[in-house]
């Protein structure tokens, strides 16, 4: 029997997120029809954009869906999944996907695989476990399955469809959750998850001034996003939102430069997918050198200014 996929879309005010298109690619590895789902307020344009990638988009607009709150979202997602007879319900393993999809699974009595890195067959998936130190192959035995996808492990689905877009009346049901507010971390720089270059700093930068003095000008030079180790986020040198790793963000840029970062497994878990990795560290024994393609051993406070100068000379 062929599968019926339902992909839960994530978007910001204007765009469908790339992470959702990675989830489409993962779903396409299993033969079947691919439906998209867009929930929110004023989201018709997102539904239209999504229709370029899937055969059918369902969208609903409702005051109760204005904010991405797991409780009402899960109900509506499960309702739609049932109404179209979905066998596989997918979302990107973003903060939002992680928040709502296990509730969807529970409503549907479905088993769930989180943050998968590969699709083996219609019910078997690979996923990183133990801080990415091991890859597990998990099989789900329920007839309906819920899966979240690690976006960096799948390319983004091409825009080669012209799906139907249809509106439906959603019923988010009663909720014991009140949305109070959202405080956006504003940045002029590219988003960590989408950036093609990421410059990350660690405790070797000595303090927030180290980020200002070294990381920011280097990031400006390469139009890079800035990441950080947990140690420096915890110390309050930089925003929490910058943490890369097992328990932070997973990134996969073309170029990842780790400066003054030791290379703990929990950090490496978040940057493994990077195409080219560079480490700058004064300790030749630092574990980061075992995962970096290129290493420079020495003091970041002398190496990075020179690097910035040489890049400026190229530009």
């Amino acid at each position, binding site marked *: 029997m062929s599968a019926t996929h339902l992909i839960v879309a994530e978007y910001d005010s204007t765009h469908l997120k790339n992470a959702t298109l990675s989830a489409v690619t993962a779903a396409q590895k299993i033969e079947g029809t691919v439906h998209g789902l867009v929930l929110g307020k004023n989201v018709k344009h997102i539904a239209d954009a999504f229709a370029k990638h899937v055969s059918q988009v369902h969208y609903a607009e409702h005051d109760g869906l204005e904010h991405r709150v797991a409780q009402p979202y899960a109900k509506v997602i499960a309702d739609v999944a049932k109404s179209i007879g979905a066998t596989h319900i997918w979302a990107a393993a973003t903060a939002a996907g992680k*928040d709502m999809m296990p509730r969807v699974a529970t409503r549907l009595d479905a088993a769930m695989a989180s943050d998968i890195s590969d699709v083996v067959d219609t019910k078997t998936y690979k996923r990183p476990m133990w801080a990415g130190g091991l890859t597990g192959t998990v099989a789900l035995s329920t007839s309906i399955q819920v899966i979240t996808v690690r976006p960096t492990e799948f390319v983004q689905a091409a825009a080669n469809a012209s799906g139907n877009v249809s509106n439906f009346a959603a019923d988010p049901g009663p909720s014991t959750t009140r949305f109070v507010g959202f405080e956006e971390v504003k940045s002029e720089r590219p988003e960590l998850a989408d950036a093609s270059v990421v410059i990350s700093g660690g405790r070797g930068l000595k303090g927030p001034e180290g980020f200002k003095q070294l990381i920011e000008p280097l990031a400006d030079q390469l139009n890079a996003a800035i990441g950080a180790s947990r140690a420096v986020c915890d110390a309050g040198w930089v925003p929490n939102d910058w943490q890369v790793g097992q328990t932070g963000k997973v990134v996969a840029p073309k170029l990842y430069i780790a400066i003054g970062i030791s290379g703990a497994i929990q950090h490496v878990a978040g940057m493994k997918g990077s195409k080219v990795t560079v480490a700058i560290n004064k300790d030749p024994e630092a574990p980061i050198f075992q995962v970096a393609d290129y290493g420079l051993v020495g003091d970041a406070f002398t190496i990075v200014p020179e690097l910035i100068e040489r890049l400026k000379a190229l530009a």
Partner: protein
Amino acid sequence: MKILVTVKRVPDYAAKLTIDPSGNKIKTEGVNMIANPFDEIAVEEALRLIEKHGGETCVLSIGTDDCTAQIRAAMAMGADRGILVKTTESLDCVSISKVIAKIFGEEKPDILLMGKQAIDDDSHQVGQMVAERLNLGQATQANKVVLEGEWATVIREADGGLETLSLKMPCVITTDLRLNEPRYASLPGIMKAKKKPLDERELSSLGLSLTPSVTLQKLEMPPNKQAGQILPDVQTLVSKLRDVEKVI
């Protein structure tokens, strides 16, 4: 006020893991076992909320007899009592969520505090599953928790910023790293913990029908990446990145 906190026994995050010959388990012999770090944060948060608002903290763990060590450790931090649901069975997230929901039904806490993820399986599912099963509001990845009347207001780490939600209690809250810094157990705390009540229950006595729906078929080491090159100077790095890798 009553707070129920779940604590999972997991291998030390610093341990070097090896795969059991069966191919689908890790070897735990000789590996130091700890409480999941996110659960320690949950215990700490429960203690702080109870210190402020009064009441009790109850710790729940599901697993073998060995989990007693992690429950006692939470009691040494200050938790009042513990429940161990004993099993040697392989329980998936769905089953774990059913067990927790069952104990929740008996204990009727105002708040269920859990870790956002367990650092071994990294599933990031159980808290949300329990919340849905009990039809409760949830806030995952909590960074700050404030209680007022029958509402818990939680600042949570969402993508791109911080989101604030208010949850009508009872509710489920899962912890992120920045929520707090867990305290160390004091020596008197450790002594007292030995005498605190720990209710041991057999999984079979809960009357749940648990059919596994997730099986771990295989564990593999990711392919070893080839060791990189240490370069002599910045100039060489720039030319590698530009001419060889073409990434700048």
